[in-house]
Structure formats: structure tokens, C-alpha cells
């Protein structure tokens, strides 16, 4: 049985490995729920219409725009933010490469970039520079000029390939 229409409802989901249950307004999008209700401010909010990529998080393993999904839609889902990926060490090498290549300045875009790139690295073993650029084309960075970010991804790829052989 599904509940009838309502302007707010209780959702239960897993966020960074922890089960949480909260009442949320139907109009609240996922990124506001993560930031304001759960205090997970690693994920940023920019344009709120899908263009900048700052709000990108993982839902059931896939990168999605946190500003274009309602929190009520995440009921039952497994959500992961940059805090979760960091805590379980899943992107430690990528983060180290970002630091080494100066792939962030103000850092506003970085959490969204990391989530987006983490998915690329899982889907493709050896993406070209062009494919990396394509993958981050939906993540705006107003500081770095992107070259350093692409460099950091290549550095991570090279290190991972080296480790695999």
C-alpha cells in the first residue's frame, strides 16, 4: 500500500552507512536535506537547476544531482556523500592527486567533482583526456581552468594501473 498525497512525510534511508529516519517536506530537495537536516555540508549547493554539478551525490551507487531529486524520493535509498566516500577511503588516491596537482583552489566544486570522477573511474578503466573532460563537463569550476583537474584524474588512473600490474 502506498501512502496518500501529503506535503510532508517520514523517510528512512541509509546515509554514509547510517540509517536515518526523518520527517521531510515534499518540496525539500535531497541536498538541502543532507546539508540542513543531517548537517552534512560537504555537498555544496550552487545553481539549484542541475547545471553546476556542485550538489552531486550518490544514490544507490549512481551519481545524481542532489538539487534535482526530492528528499522524499530517497526513501529506502542508499545515499553517499563526499564525507562517506572519504571516510571509507574510497577516493583517498584521487584526493591526494587533487592536492598534488593543485586541482582545487576555493574548493566549491570539489565535492561534486570527486563524486563525478569516482563514478567515471568505476565505469572506465582507461578513459582518454577527452573522455575525462566529457565526464566532468557537467561540473563547473570557476577557479582552476580544469587542466589541473584532468591532470589529477590522469595521475590517479596511472597510479591505479600501476598498482593493478
Amino acid at each position: 500500500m502506498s501512502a496518500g498525497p501529503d506535503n510532508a512525510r517520514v523517510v528512512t534511508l541509509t546515509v554514509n552507512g547510517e540509517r536515518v529516519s526523518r520527517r521531510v517536506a515534499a518540496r525539500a530537495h535531497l541536498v538541502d536535506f543532507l546539508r540542513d537536516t543531517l548537517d552534512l555540508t560537504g555537498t555544496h549547493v550552487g545553481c539549484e537547476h542541475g547545471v553546476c554539478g556542485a550538489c552531486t551525490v550518490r544514490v544507490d551507487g549512481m551519481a545524481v544531482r542532489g538539487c534535482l531529486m526530492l528528499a522524499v524520493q530517497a526513501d529506502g535509498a542508499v545515499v553517499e556523500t563526499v564525507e562517506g566516500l572519504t571516510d571509507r577511503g574510497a577516493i583517498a588516491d584521487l584526493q591526494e592527486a587533487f592536492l598534488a596537482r593543485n586541482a582545487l583552489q576555493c574548493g566549491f566544486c570539489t565535492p561534486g567533482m570527486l563524486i563525478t570522477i569516482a563514478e567515471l573511474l568505476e565505469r572506465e578503466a582507461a578513459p582518454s583526456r577527452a573522455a575525462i573532460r566529457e565526464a566532468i563537463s557537467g561540473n563547473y569550476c570557476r577557479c582552476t581552468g580544469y587542466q589541473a583537474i584532468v591532470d589529477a584524474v590522469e595521475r590517479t588512473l596511472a597510479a591505479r594501473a600501476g598498482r593493478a600490474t
Partner: protein
Amino acid sequence: MKAPDFAYARPTVLSEVFDLLDGDGDVRLLAGGQSLVPSLNMRLSAPSLLVDINRLPGLSGIEARDGVVRIGALTRHGEIARSALIAERLPLLAMAAPHIAHAAIRNRGTFGGSIALADPAAEWPACCLALGATMVVASRAGERRVAAGDFFTGLFATALRRGEVLVAIEIASPPAGSVAHFSELARRRGDYAIVGLAAQVARAEDGAMDPRLAFFGVGDRPVLAEATRRVIAGGGGIADAQATLGRDLAPTGDAECAGATKLHLARVLLGRAMAALRTRGDA
């Protein structure tokens, strides 16, 4: 900005969706949300109720039966991009998918949502036109089928009536020897096209071509270039075809560029397509 207040329902059977669509007020279906939620956040629309169809069984997935590929309305853009069945049977869709937005948006946006929205610059409606797709529409009264050529009726307007849900899109596999061609011009990767071309081209053994050319970004809906098709099928060359395209298309200008520029760009895409098709060996 933040979305206005609205009520939310998440039915798990189609009959419940029909009940909710019958209610008063501005009731909207919520599929991938990748067009609807931005319009809510920007306060361009203020529905009273969103009916989330994401948990309805049977609306998602790609399957082939009797030479027809059936794509559930809830199938995500990304699933189509990664489907081996689509790459084999309907390569036009595989070619178009990477041009739609960005990976995170393709993970969520749906085939049916894009077709129901009918943005004149969107890739999927043009592909459906080029492929002669059939839209499967359900309502309390039962199912009906609408040909792509009759489905797109204007700017963000379709043949869908109040109370109806687009449930699937059926596309017959193109005949052997037919090839797909897709290209578009956009300012940035992932942007909606300024002008685009989705083409499915039947080719005879002697090299004669019979192309279904669907242009998008050139008016209030995607357009099949029929006069140009006849010129090409009759053996006309690139210059003839490009000249004739002016009879098929009458683009109006938009924020992107003037109508005359769009017609010029459509001719450029047509010329490139014909040149590429002539040299392709994968007939």
C-alpha cells in the same frame, strides 16, 4: 531558489496513478525530475500535486520481441547509452545518448520524460521521428498507440491527453543495410542543441539512399525533411539536398541565434551527414 509547496504521492499501481490524475488542481507526473524539478526550483511551475511514477513496476527496461524494441517510459538515458541491445538494434539511440546533458543527469532522466516533455531541441523526440517510433499511452480507458509523427504537436506539446501516461515506446528494428547518423551543434558539451540531425538511412545495393532526416532545434517540434528525402532518394547531390532543405525547414530564431543561421547550420549538418554516409562501409 527553492520549489514551492506541493503534495507528493508515490503510487505503486497504474490504477492509482489514474485516480490521482483525475483529482482537482495542477497534478503532474514526476519521472526523472531532470526537467520538472528545475522548473519547480525556478518557480516556473507550481503544481498542487506531484505523482512520482518511479516505483511503478513494469515501466522500466528495454526488451526485444518480434523485431520490435520496446523501451519502458521510465528507462533512464544512461541505461539506453549502456545497453548492448540498443547498440545492436537501434544504434541511432546509442549515438544520441552521450549528447543528452551530463552523466549524473543521464543517470536519472528518463526516455519517456523527455518524449512527454517534447522540448524542440531535445534528442530523443527527433530520434523517435527518424525511427518511426510508436508511443504506447495508457489511461483508465485502456491503451492506445500514437505514431511519433502525430505525437509531437507543438512547442512542449504532445498528443497526450489529461489522465494519460506514456508507458512505453516501441521501435521496429530498421531493415538490414539501413544505417544511423547523428550529429548536433551545441555551444558546450551537454547543452541542448542549437541544431541537430537524427537520421536513419536505408541504402540499396547500388548505393541509393532513402534517408529519414529528423532535424531538431529548428522550430516548435522536430521536423522530418521530406522534400530533401525525395531529392536524395532520386539521386540528388549534396548541393541539391542543401538547397531543398529550405523547403522543409523554416526555423525561427531563439536566444541562441537567428532563424537564417539555424537553416545554414542545418545545411552544414546535412552536408556532413551525406559526405559521411557515402564513405561509410558498414552498410
